[in-house]
């Protein structure tokens, strides 16, 4: 039984570099979310996909952040020109019916040096 899979699990990058984070949701889950969790903080909503469309991108903190989803499956979150404040754990979650609950991945820990 595959759950939500995220890769890489850890990423260390230099300030100014671009990074791509990947999420493989549970098969058949049409809803997909990206959240960010900074150290000592709660989960911060970034973006929501329904199928391949993103009707809610309101949480993306700047235009350096973008995300896409293809085949109603894999999603990638791209951060361009990374800054130190981007350091966080990035969590992906998927669901068939969000009101029934979300299934989370293990997250990608991003460290920008």
């Amino acid at each position, binding site marked *: 039984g595959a*759950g939500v899979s995220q890769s890489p699990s850890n990423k260390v990058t230099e300030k100014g570099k671009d990074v791509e984070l990947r999420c493989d949701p549970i098969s058949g889950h049409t809803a997909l979310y990206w959240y960010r969790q900074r150290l000592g903080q*709660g989960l911060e909503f970034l973006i*929501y996909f329904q199928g391949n469309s993103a009707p809610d991108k309101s949480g993306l903190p700047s235009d350096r952040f973008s995300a896409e989803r293809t085949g109603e499956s894999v999603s990638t979150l791209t951060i361009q020109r990374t800054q130190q404040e981007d350091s966080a754990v990035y969590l992906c*979650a998927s669901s068939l019916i969000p*009101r029934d609950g979300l299934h989370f991945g293990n997250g990608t820990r991003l460290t920008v040096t």
Partner: protein
Amino acid sequence: AQRVTQPEKLLSVFKGAPVELKCNYSYSGSPELFWYVQYSRQRLQLLLRHISRESIKGFTADLNKGETSFHLKKPFAQEEDSAMYYCALIYSNYKLTFGKGTLLTVNP
């Protein structure tokens, strides 16, 4: 604006003692609330939903609309309950907003 507040960052109890993790919400509509839990080195997972009125691992949570609260309770805490607990509110059918979490430690 929708908001979830967990006033306690840390909560420590002894094994066998009752435990209550507090959650208050702010929402103008009809709320749907959840508790999520993250055990050490595991992923965040759903513990319970108020709408299903379940009891999971001995935990219960009652929605109190008058007090806008959804506190999580267990009458006798176990060491394996030690974890990070997040209260969450869903609105617009999809958008989940989380509290900042409470780290529960159950001491032997």
